[in-house]
């Protein structure tokens, strides 16, 4: 496949994603997940409230350290604390959500007639495992950057931005083989291993398309990731509450990014299936 064709395929997938987004019902599962994530964010933000301090404070101190329960350090470390909780939500709620969105997209807007959704008894387990694998790989990328000296990790400015971009680039590379996993479970009624195999196969045959589609949500959320780090800390030094706004905005943007990406991935899987 030529580069132009690969880029064209990516564009076509995104377009399909955007077109599919007019069906409000396809947003419902993502909205539900976002509500859960917002609830978690509020829990660790307002941990000091008497009603939730019993649950919130241990969580904040566990993920952010003892200093994280003191103002303003708490708000500066909020991204770290939330990053400790969020992966668990993404595994247990995000996996099934991705499954539900894909199913809904196929049923309602992408291919309601041509591709009836297959029944799959192991779909839930497979989606949980794919989500866990994706979260694990993302955590691995984060851990890989932990080997950098502290002086580099805490840097703002251009170097800090370059490090954040390098991390995002690596994340795209690592996650792209899993892009079509959820769609494979729904379209082909495959188990976890078969879905992963198919997803890797698609990524290897159409690497540019898959990389571009995976890069989209990562690029969209990159500004929020950057602002959650040392750069944001120095920028919002006098207004630590802005960290909460950054995280919340990031969550909202992630809904759109996730929706379009899932739609695009479904398109790619359906397209390869039709070619087979």
């Amino acid at each position, binding site marked *: 496949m030529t580069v132009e064709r690969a880029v064209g395929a990516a564009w076509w997938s995104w377009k399909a994603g955007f077109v599919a987004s007019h069906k409000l019902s396809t947003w419902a599962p993502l909205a539900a997940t976002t509500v859960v994530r917002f609830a978690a964010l509020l829990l660790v933000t307002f941990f000091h409230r008497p009603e939730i301090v019993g649950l919130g404070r241990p969580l904040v101190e566990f993920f952010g350290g003892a200093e994280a*329960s*003191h103002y303003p350090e708490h708000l500066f470390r909020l991204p770290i604390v939330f990053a400790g909780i969020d992966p668990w939500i993404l595994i247990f709620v995000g996996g099934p959500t991705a499954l539900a969105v894909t199913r809904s997209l196929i049923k309602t807007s992408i291919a309601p007639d041509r591709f009836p959704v297959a029944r799959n008894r192991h779909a839930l387990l497979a989606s949980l495992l794919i989500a866990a694998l994706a979260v694990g790989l993302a955590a691995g990328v984060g851990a890989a950057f932990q080997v950098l000296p502290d002086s580099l990790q805490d840097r703002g400015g251009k170097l800090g931005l370059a490090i954040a971009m390098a991390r995002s680039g690596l994340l795209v590379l690592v996650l792209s083989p899993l892009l079509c996993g959820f769609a494979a479970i729904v379209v082909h009624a495959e188990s976890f291993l078969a879905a992963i195999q198919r997803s890797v196969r698609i990524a290897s045959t159409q690497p540019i398309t898959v990389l571009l589609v995976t890069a989209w949500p990562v690029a969209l959320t990159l500004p929020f990731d950057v602002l959650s780090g040392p750069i944001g800390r120095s920028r919002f030094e006098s207004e630590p509450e802005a960290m909460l706004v950054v995280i919340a905005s990031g969550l909202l943007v992630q809904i759109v990014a996730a929706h379009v990406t899932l739609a695009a991935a479904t398109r790619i899987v359906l397209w390869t299936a039709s070619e087979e």
Partner: protein
Amino acid sequence: MKRHAEHAMKWLPCIVLATGLAACGSEDVSVLYGAERVLWRADRAQANLPLPALADSGRAWRAQATRYDRIAETYENWAAWNPDSPVREDLLGVASSARWSAVRVHKTLADTLSMRRELDRLVAPETHDPAIVVRALRRRADVSAANGDFDAWVADLRRIWSIVLPSNRWVRNVIGVPAEIVEAQLRRGDPDSVAAARRDALEVYDTLTTRESVTLTRLAHLESASLLNDVGRFEDSVALLKPELDRILRVRGPRGDEIRYVVRTVELMADALSAGAVKPEFFEDPLKFIVLRSFEVGRPHAALADAFAERGDDQRALEMYRLIRRKHDDATWGPYVTRAEAELYARANRWKQNEVAIDLLRTRYALTPEALDAPLALRRFRADSGDPLGAARALEAAIDEYRSLRRRYPEGAHTDRLILRLSEALELRGATDEAYALRLEWIDLVRGRAAELERLAETVRVGRRMLRPDAEIRPLLERIAALFPGTRLGARAARELQSPEP
């Protein structure tokens, strides 16, 4: 009804969980978090206050002090009402920080009365963190020392010592406190109290040497030696310091505190050299050691050179100054050394060399404090050597030079000193009108800052010395009374203004 019951049963675990969470939480953490936020906001607000502090008669800064005071009050009260609260200590920490910030604000306003009031609250027993209490006591002792309140000064120093005594680390940080008690008694001027305080201090330092801390022992020895030097017991001082000095000089890779010990010993022994208690050869090895290993090379060498000069051993003193010039950073030590050399040459009536040194000060180190002092120093050298004509000529030259410097460099870090020296020179010539006008200009340079108080008071003194009319001095007194009502000088100025003949 049954359906309702089933529905309720379904939600029961959630209700139990929510009730449990609500029950186990208290508002303590919320109060602490709020306190931290309020204090942080106050600190941020302080960064935006107008500078200088007295620009708007200090209104904004006084409001900031009140804000801190209110924060401290609120959380001290909360802690008092909730003695069993798990966050009591943390809240008192917030209150202490707020009070400490209020102290700093009052200091900026030179409002010693309010500062003292805040400090009194901070050191109230069983309220605040010992670290803060020690800091507050230290600050209060400084205020008492400045006000000449010797009993309060000594009492605070004793309290600091009693708090820190159990910890070697804390004692190390405030090791000079027993010696400062001696200084306080010296300033009081009661010989019996001085002798008793010195005896107590030496005993205290002697006790410290029994603790298992080599660093503490060294520090205690250095403090004891300094006290012994003060009463001329140089032999005892040498006997105390020499064994450890010899040991360190033999160490292959000495640590930082060992190097500092050698540096300080040389400085202390320089006093002994002035008194003839040690021979110049005593310093050979320590100086070699210092030159090789220490960053603080200039200070001990300068102390020793000054000691040689004091003994009248000009040749050795000059050699030492030249060594400092050779070994050390010219920008830091050059002006000091050149100034000292000029003084030595003048003392020996070597006027040619003296002029060379003074010229060097003027050219190479222009606008440094030493260079600015040089023209007037030259006049003093001449006057001291019994050459009134030369002194008068030097004074005229000094005035011309200061005027020329003012024209060429109207503003900069040197301006304060330059104006002051020109004013002094003019006063010596009897041109008091211009000298007094320059003093007023000198005050304006720090208008609105705490330093203004000292300059106003100094100018009142100088004005009286120059026999300036009351109409000129009165506005200065009024300004002191209006801007610094919380200070000793402010109160005195107000009294003077009320009396018929200030």
